[in-house]
């Protein structure tokens, strides 16, 4: 990198295009400094800013009498009656799991649980939707074992049961496995908390683990922008600590229930910056923050690292004015360190100070309003040909028994017992329908007769061949799974795992799949209350001529659906009792 290169020339190192860099300059009213550019880059990334996917979400139905909180918060919330509500959301940890399956999957569980308890809900169920390549290869075995170990390590230790999920195998996931985790939390309506700041003058409090250089290893910044710590010092892998998270969970819920907090937000992707500036945006206010106050795990950290670190198990709380000390005492009881790092301001700026100097001063709104891109989608001719292939000539196998055995022994269809037995699925003593007993899990709600059912579904082969119908079918399957345990479907969360949206054939899949989800959700009266997007899931496939070709994973819009049972003791499982029973086939 030449010294004479301007920031604009190296916009890409901040995750911005040159056009986006110019938009930043316009919004700020001057050229941004490197820190500001990096902050915009993070906030405008797909992960935080949804620049490619948000326009597609417009087709989703998001409201209904059952919806207490739609998309836009840490998690969606639906009413289940009797004064109770369920917060739920799904999130992916695909790329981290491909690099370090145990910690990648573990921190995925940690992240989604924080989203749930940041809403004021006590997490009470986890589901995991996993996709891997060919199970006969050492790589897939390593990934599968590691991912399951990671989920079990985190979920079991924190004491939230993992009650369901799915595991499928297909070569398209060989290099790029998918790890989607869904969590549900239970709360009383009045405890619904929001990621906002309350009023001017409120303090901003940092609680949880210290900040390290986690998650910066993969960053593309020029070394000049970071401290002189070597790359070695910038771990590409984040290690999760379920023990710390358990303390955070208990402390946060207690603080919310005691009315001590005006706002809560977890620090997820783009850590401190994204959490605080999202809160400011929702409140329509500004923030002044002192980066020097951020507790660090290592010496010599610089503003860019402090701002963008993705260290796990950290939260931002805003105390109710006048009750700061009570909150601090409560957090201390849970053995958590806490620091005031900033204050809510009248102005509408996001301002960061470092050693007395103003190092970032940009409009909150611009940070949260990433440019949106709509592209042109074109169906791949290859896939269309596959779909339209005439199958009428395929002979019916003679030995159907053998076919059945072959099908049953495919890892996608075979029993998942060795996996779900590694998850504590009964802690909290609410699990009425356990994994393996039905296609959806059922939890009772203590203090009420109600039950909550949840499932996650997607058939990526179907979506690959026909993204619209396949995605709609995933919603329909989820609804059937809930109906089969006796639950009425309420709403969905989704996790859109796709390839590179710049490729027209991938963009086509995205457009079709989101439309399919939207139409199915309208038909079934299950609004979308939130979700997550994971793009750029692709891999390089070696070709016969020695070259490589970039291939996307099968498009995988995982659907997580939640339903309610009016009386949890009236539920159904797949088990056939021993006495004579009749089987009926419904539908056509």
């Amino acid at each position: 990198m030449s010294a004479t290169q301007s920031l604009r020339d190296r916009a890409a190192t901040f995750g911005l295009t040159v056009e986006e860099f110019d938009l930043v300059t316009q919004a700020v009213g001057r050229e941004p400094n490197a820190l500001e550019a990096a902050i915009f880059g993070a906030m405008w990334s797909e992960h935080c800013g949804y620049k490619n996917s948000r326009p597609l979400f417009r087709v989703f139905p998001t409201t209904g009498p059952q919806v207490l909180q739609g998309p836009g918060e840490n998690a969606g919330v639906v009413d289940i009656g009797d004064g109770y509500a369920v917060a739920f959301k799904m999130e992916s940890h695909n790329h981290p799991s491909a690099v370090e399956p145990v910690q990648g999957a573990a921190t995925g569980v940690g992240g989604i649980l924080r989203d749930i308890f940041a809403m004021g809900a006590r997490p009470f169920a986890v589901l995991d939707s996993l996709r891997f390549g060919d199970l006969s290869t050492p790589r897939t075995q390593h990934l599968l074992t590691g991912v399951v170990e990671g989920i079990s390590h985190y979920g079991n230790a924190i004491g939230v049961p993992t009650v369901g999920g799915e595991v499928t195998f297909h070569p398209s996931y060989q290099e790029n496995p998918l790890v989607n985790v869904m969590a549900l939390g239970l709360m009383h309506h009045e405890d619904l908390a929001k990621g906002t700041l309350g009023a001017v003058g409120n303090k901003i409090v940092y609680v949880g683990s210290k900040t390290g250089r986690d998650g910066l290893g993969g960053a593309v910044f020029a070394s000049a922008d970071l401290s002189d710590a070597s790359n070695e010092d910038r771990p590409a892998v984040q290690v999760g600590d379920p023990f710390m998270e358990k303390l955070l969970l208990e402390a946060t819920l207690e603080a919310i229930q005691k009315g001590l907090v005006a706002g809560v937000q977890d620090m997820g992707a783009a850590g401190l910056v994204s959490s605080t500036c999202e809160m400011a945006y929702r409140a329509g206010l500004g923030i002044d923050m002192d980066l020097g106050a951020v507790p660090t795990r290592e010496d010599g950290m610089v503003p860019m690292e402090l701002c963008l670190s993705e260290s796990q198990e950290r939260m931002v709380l805003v105390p109710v004015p006048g009750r700061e000390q009570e909150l601090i005492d409560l957090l201390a009881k849970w053995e958590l360190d806490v620091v005031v790092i900033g204050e809510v301001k009248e102005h509408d700026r996001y301002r960061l100070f470092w050693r007395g100097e103003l190092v970032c001063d940009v409009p909150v709104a611009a940070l949260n309003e990433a440019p949106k891109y709509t592209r042109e989608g074109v169906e791949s001719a290859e896939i269309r040909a596959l779909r339209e292939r005439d199958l009428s000539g395929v002979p019916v196998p003679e030995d159907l028994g053998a076919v059945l055995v072959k099908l049953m022994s495919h890892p996608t269809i075979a029993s998942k017992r060795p996996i779900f037995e590694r998850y504590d699925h009964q802690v909290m003593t609410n699990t009425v329908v356990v994994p393996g007993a039905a296609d959806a899990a059922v939890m009772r709600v203590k203090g009420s007769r109600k039950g909550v059912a949840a499932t996650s579904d997607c058939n990526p082969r179907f979506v690959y061949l026909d993204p619209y119908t396949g995605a709609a079918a995933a919603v329909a399957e989820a609804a059937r799974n809930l109906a089969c345990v006796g639950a009425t479907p309420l709403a969905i969360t989704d996790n859109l795992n796709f390839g590179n949206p710049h490729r027209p054939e991938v963009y086509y899949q995205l457009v079709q799949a989101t439309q399919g989800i939207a139409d199915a959700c309208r038909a079934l009266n299950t609004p979308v209350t939130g979700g997550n997007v994971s793009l750029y899931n692709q891999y390089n496939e070696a070709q016969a001529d020695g070259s490589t070709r970039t291939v996307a994973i099968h498009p995988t819009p995982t659907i997580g659906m939640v339903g309610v049972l009016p009386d949890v003791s009236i539920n159904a499982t797949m088990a056939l009792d021993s006495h004579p029973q009749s089987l009926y086939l419904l539908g056509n």
Partner: protein
Amino acid sequence: MKTAVIQFPGSNCDADAVYVAGELLGQQAKLVWHTETSLEGVDAVLIPGGFSYGDHLRSGAIAARSPIMHEVRRFAERGGPVVGICNGFQILTEAGLLPGALTRNDSLHFLCHDVHLRVERTDTIFTSAYRQGQVLRLPIAHNEGNYYADEETLARLRGEGRVLFRYVTPGGEVERAANPNGSQNNIAGILNERGNVLGMMPHPERAAEALLGGTDGRGLFESLLAAVVR
């Protein structure tokens, strides 16, 4: 019966224990935070499952050294009933209130499924509601439930009738195949010398309601209640 459920940072079956000992049994049960130093007015102590201190170092090791354990020891010395379930069992062995140690499951995996247990004695304050030799179905959920003690200790446990529960087949046979974790002698639960401290890996509190698929664990709490009230 007033039950104290000890709560350590990282305990996660604490609320479940309070629910069974309190709500289901219609008795009083309260959480006692690990830094507290009194068990005044308590009839029974329950050390619940979970991952106290993240199970760091060794499961139960750090919790066993926290302030409240001093009080639990005194309570046990006075003859008060103490039950440690899962992580609670690990804490009791680490604290020296029960002999032996719980090591990693021989499969090296965390396991969550139902097992069958045989009640080896019914003349204890924990098992009077069961039949001698009764086979119970209870869930396990642990990573380190592989009971280990040296030969001498094992011989004493056997000789003094201090093995209270063994892993068995559904038919009640002690077999290797019925042992989920490699425990010596298929041990699932043991008593201290005096018979007032019990440690067990399976979770009776998860099998105390028909709605959750079983009620075999309820007898343990009922036995305790009967003993305390008497």
